Structure formats: C-alpha cells, structure tokens
C-alpha cells in the first residue's frame, strides 16, 4: 500500500510519513477535489474505479484500503 500512502501524501500536500492506515481523513483537507484525486490515484495504481459516494464516506485510510480490496475482489 506504499504507493497509496505516497499518492495520498501528495494529494494532502503532507510528508509521506504522516500517512498510515490509521490516519483520519478529516485531519486533512478531505474535500471533493481530494476525493476525485484519490479516485484517479486508485485507478492508476490498482486499476480499480471506486464508487465516488462510497469513497466520500471513508473516514480513515484503512477504510479506503478496505474499499479497494472489496472492489478488486
């Protein structure tokens, strides 16, 4: 998942060390642009198109990881 952490760090404009599965998305700027950017990021690294509304409901990075696992299954 390091590609996901690196990508999220870029989206949130923070250092990669600040991103872990436990990270709360509300601590960053989890706005519509961040959601759109994350959707494109996951498409690029996992080849999976997430449901936008489900992604918007994620509260932690772990939630995003779980959504990717569910969609990829």
């Amino acid at each position, binding site marked *: 998942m390091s590609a996901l952490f690196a990508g999220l760090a870029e989206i949130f404009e923070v250092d990669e060390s600040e991103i872990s599965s436990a990270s709360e998305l509300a601590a960053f700027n989890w706005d*519509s642009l961040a959601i*759109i950017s994350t*959707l494109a990021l996951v498409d690029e690294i996992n080849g999976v198109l997430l449901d*936008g509304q489900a992604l918007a409901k994620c509260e932690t990075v772990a939630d995003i990881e779980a959504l990717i696992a569910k969609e990829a299954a």
Partner: protein
Amino acid sequence: MLTARIKAIAGHLPEGRLTNDALAARFPDWSADKILDKTGIAERRIAADGETSLDLAEGAAKALLAQEGLNPGEIDFLLLCTQTPDYVLPTSACLLQARLGLPTSAGALDFNLGCSGFVYGLSLAKALIESGQAKRVLLVTADTYSKLLAPDDQGVRTLFGDGAAATLVEAVEAQAPLIDPVVFGTDGLGGERLIVKRGGFREPSAGADMVLEMDGPGVMAFTLGHVPKAIEQLLARTGRTMDEHDLFVFHQANGFILDRLRKKLAIPPERFVIDMREVGNTVSSTIPLALAPLLSQGAGAPRRVMLVGFGVGLSWAAASVVI
C-alpha cells in the same frame, strides 16, 4: 467518393471574464495558483445578463461566414447544440436561421446534449451530407452554463465558462472518408451525475432555482471508465491505431481529468491538445474551440485527429477525422 469534411471553425466568446483572483477572493481556501494548478484554467468567459446562447451562436456563425467569405444562402442545414435555449419553444435554431439570413429552404433543428454534443453533431452533419440531403451544414454549439451555477458552488464555478463555436461541414470529393463512422455511448442511469432538476416539466421552476448539480467523483469515475472503452471501440470500428492519429482533441473538461486520461491512454503530451486555459469548460464548444487554431494552421499536410466528447447524460461519442 462524396464525403463530409470539417471545412472551417470560428468561435465566439462573451466579453465578461471570471479570473482565478476573483474566485480566490470568494473561496479563500483555494488560492488563485491552486485553482490554475488543479483545473488548468486561468479565466472563464461569462455571458452578461440578457446575453444568451442564441446571441453567442449568432456571433460564432457570423464570424464563420465572414472568415470563409460565405453567403448565408449557401448553407442548407443548421444544427444547433445547446442546453440553454432562449425559449422552451420555438427552437433556437429557427430563430438563428432568421438572424443569419439563411434561406427559408434550409433545415434547422436544436439538439440537447452537453459535452458530447459536438461529436454527435458532426455525425449528424456527416449523415445529412453523405446521404445527399445537404451540401453545407452549419453546426453550431452554444451554451451559457454560468447562468445555471450556484454562486457558492466552488466545484463548478472554477470550471465552467460560456461560449459558442460554429463549424462548417461540407461535401467534397475525396479518395476516402474524411470523417470515419462515429461510435456512440449512452448511460441514462448516470443522469443525476450532472443535472439541472428545475425548469422542466417534472419540477417546474419557481424562478432562480435552475441550478446545476454535479457529482464530481461520479463524473470522474465515468470518464476514466468509459472514455478508454469508447476509444477501443472506435479503433476496432475504424481499423485504425492510436499511432495513426497525429493529434487527440478530447472534451476540455478540466486540466486534471485530461491529465489523468492522457496518462491512462499513454498519449504523448505533444500530441494531446489542451486548450482551455483562457476559456474554461465551455461544454459542447470545447472541442471545436480547441480544433479551430489547428485548422487555421492550414497549409500543412492533412492530419488525422481523434475527437472524444463525454459528459452530461451520461453521453459520449468518439470520432476519427482528417483536418
């Protein structure tokens, strides 16, 4: 063989401008630089109060006729793509026929599509010409989405601008078709991804409540999922390859989405046209506005260009043309 070709394009934009500085003043969490960085747009052109799609369409069509030295009497069909018509009825294209002085023997109709509209219009023009029903089709795209945007909706106000483009599609003799068969796509289940709910007859408008609602992540997922598939279908249908295309002109939705699409499709940046910095997302006019300067470069060898429109409907279409 008789084939349709894109002969010329002219654009027309309203005078009003909405800059990133003005947007940053209204939405302080985004700086002007961040808006430019994320959207690829520096300013949008905004129609004045009382200035409509029909006015912009007239401006574009008159510019085209003047540029080509064409007499209005030589146009035998008018196609107008707009989602912001002057009236529920009559058809804006009929009013435009009169404003332009096109012959009363000309056919004229509106069709209601957004970002896919230009490619659909090209297909309709091709069909009219290649079936012998018209010789010179004036295809006009015009919209004033700014009139549908909520003042406090940052997501849409940073993207959309108003504008119009007029394209002359005419019959010529050539060895091979200059507009290949177009591939289409429609998914009405995504109708609410981009919608203005009020103002039709399902939810009549009480006045100033005709507002565009956009599900940004939903539109992004649609685009990244469907555009590559549409291109695969176009290549299969036409028997062509990506490499045969000198240029790619996609609907200029915003810089971010275009950048992701370009990378996903592995298109070299020098062949991928991005031309929206000064106008924003002008809906059905983005493709012709981006094509116009390429056509006027003129004298060089003919180039094959892939056009892909995608958006509200949901609706999409892809074409391979020679300019």
